[in-house]
């Protein structure tokens, strides 16, 4: 049996026997659905009246990937121009692909589709050699990377609730089934926002275009810097700088680009904290000049902004993976979890779709990984019998072939 057939059969088994749509789907009849088949074609512009109808379709079709639109349409089945856009949920995608981690240099690789130039770590936007923008990538859903994606998620949630005022009932969080998290905001007023308005929201949470002169810091003289008690970005900047100053050692200052002032900053720690925590009259700390404050603030902005994927949020027609369906690149489920459970949520437990059975595979290479409580690997050119979920993950990621 070839590997693709194995994956297809396993997916079929899941949809026929274990599948149910747990996650709520608001106004299902107004959504467009799309499915990728195992033969490589895409079925789009489908719609379903009820969850039941959709469930039956999935049980029967067992797609490689299943998607639904963040948008609501008058006629979801019509061509794009005739669909009648009624609005769209505000959606954020946080993916390890966009977050620099140390380990991505170990487990992620890219190869230029044009000149075959290759490298490790985050895929560049353009090939450094020929400028081409298409790449073949080889990535890994790594636990450390997913943790950093979760950290970004937590930062985003704080923005959404405190600054944007969305309630916990309007915000939903999902593990994507691969390398990241999806955050959906279902708020009636926000639904109507066009793509430009959504770009403004993305720029807000990523801190793009933030100009410190609007935060009390203008050239050379410091008027009224932000205080930890302030709201919005002002408070965020001050709180982030406060945490940094409180915990930073010499190296941290150096890494933040403050090497020339390390001694001064450490000596003045108390006064700095007082300025940040107080009414924000920053100019009172002796010897700490505008340039130093500026650098400190810029560093703080970088560490509290949430790294979301701009293209996803600004696309008001976007198709997004459907919760409770399998991710074709991992065989893991996309799963929703409670906002209150963010810190304890374990993607490598909750997203496992197969609890029984085994498969024999030849693994070309794979890093060490964990599923639920079991640790696997690392493997290199190894023939081995693995539990279904582990075998499926390796086969889907192109790291293993099914034997016989």
């Amino acid at each position, binding site marked *: 049996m070839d590997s693709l057939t194995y994956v297809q059969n396993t997916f079929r088994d899941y949809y026929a026997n274990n599948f149910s749509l747990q996650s709520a789907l608001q106004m299902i009849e107004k959504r467009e659905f799309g499915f990728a088949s195992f033969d490589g074609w895409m079925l789009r512009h489908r719609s379903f009246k009820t969850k039941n109808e959709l469930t039956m379709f999935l049980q029967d079709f067992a797609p490689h990937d299943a998607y639904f639109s963040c948008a609501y349409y008058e006629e979801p089945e019509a061509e794009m121009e005739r669909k009648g856009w009624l609005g769209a949920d505000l959606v954020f995608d946080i993916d390890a692909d966009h977050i620099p981690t140390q380990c991505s240099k170990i487990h992620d690789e890219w190869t230029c589709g044009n000149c075959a130039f290759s490298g490790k770590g985050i895929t560049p936007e353009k090939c450094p050699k020929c400028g081409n923008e298409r790449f073949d990538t080889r990535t890994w859903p790594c636990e450390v990377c997913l943790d950093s994606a979760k950290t970004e998620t937590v930062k985003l949630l704080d923005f959404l609730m405190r600054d944007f*005022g969305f309630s916990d009932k309007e915000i939903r969080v999902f593990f994507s089934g691969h390398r990241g998290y999806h955050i959906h905001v279902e708020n009636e007023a926000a639904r109507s926002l*066009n793509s430009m308005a959504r770009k*403004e929201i993305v720029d807000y949470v990523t801190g793009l275009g933030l100009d410190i002169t609007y935060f009390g810091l203008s050239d050379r003289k410091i008027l009224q810097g932000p205080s930890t008690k302030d709201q919005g970005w002002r408070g965020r900047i001050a709180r982030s700088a406060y945490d940094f100053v409180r915990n930073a050692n010499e190296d941290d200052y150096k890494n933040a680009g403050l090497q020339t002032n390390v001694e001064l900053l450490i000596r003045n720690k108390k006064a700095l904290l007082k300025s940040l925590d107080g009414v924000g009259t920053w100019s009172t700390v002796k010897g700490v000049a505008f340039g130093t404050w500026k650098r400190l603030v810029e560093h703080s902005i970088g560490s509290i902004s949430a790294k979301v994927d701009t293209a996803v949020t600004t696309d008001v027609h976007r198709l997004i993976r459907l919760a409770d369906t399998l991710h074709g690149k991992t065989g893991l489920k996309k799963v929703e979890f409670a906002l209150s459970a963010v810190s304890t949520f374990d993607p490598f437990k909750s997203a496992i779709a197969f609890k029984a059975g085994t498969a024999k595979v030849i693994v070309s290479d794979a890093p060490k990984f964990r599923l639920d409580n079991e640790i696997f690997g690392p493997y290199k050119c190894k023939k081995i019998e693995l539990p279904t979920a582990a075998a499926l993950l390796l086969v889907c990621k192109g790291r293993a072939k099914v034997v016989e």
Partner: protein
Amino acid sequence: MRYAFSKLAKNDYAKYPFLKAAIKYVQIPDLRIQDLADSNRENILKRAQQRLEEAIFDNIVSRDLHHEDIEIISFPVAVMLAMATKNSFIQKRYALAEANQTYEDLRKESEEKTLEVAKNFGWELASNKESRMPYRFALNLVDYLRNTTHLREKPWKLVNRMLSNGNVYLGIDEVARLLKEEVRRHIEKRLELKELPAFPPKITEIAEKIRKLSEDTIGKTEMEGFPKAIVQVAFPPCIKALYESFSSGRHLSHVGRFTLTSFLINIGMPPETVVEFFKSFSDYNERMTRYQVEHIAGEKGSRTRYIPPKCDTLKTHGVCTNPDELCQRMRHPLSYYRIKVKAT
């Protein structure tokens, strides 16, 4: 007539005649078009004509608060006159000129009345209750975004604003500025009416006079806009947005301006017309504008003609706006245009 529930008096409606309730304050609410030609209605028609003339000459429409009735009723009549000119340049200019006056008035307006005007347009605007924040108003985030995304100046960027719990905090001047945009759009919309009524000869006559006046003062080329060979309906969404925001007097980012200029040149608009276009809608320094346009066209300096950035680049700069189905298959706004031109 008095309406106990409103915080606005008749005098305020004379100042803001575009408000929904304004018409209830005049004695002759069901005035018909035909009646306007009557000699005892002459004052109304005269003032309406004047409103348009002021728009053409001064770019701002004054207020005569001593004659409230005429002031209120002459507004819808002026809108009708603008429609009767069948000239989109005059119409746009009129909408902007009324909005300009509104801005001046609102800057000095009381908090209570400002809130009332905002409410008329469905805004969730409130006085700021948070003493820690030095702003007079709090505006609902969605209302804020709807009214600012096309304003490219840095201070309007959401990330540079005080945003808390779904409200954006604003000063009176900023609220006035945003309401001005709303008023302009509102009037433009009223002018959009698809089917024009049959105007009595007197109205058509005045409309013709206004047209003539506008041609004499502003110049024919600018009023006519694009040469025939340029198919405006084939513009991709990004260009449409840039074009519209620029022609309604907004400031474009550097990339935005470069994109629009190079696009217009590459689809065959003569550099001279592009310069005229920029000149007519902004206070850009003419010499600089001319130099830049000619530079992009390859007539000055480098001698190479520039083309607009490709879609990917426009996306990262936030110039790409509401891409449509055709966009999905496009990598460049110029190819979008060429394909669409063939199709139309």
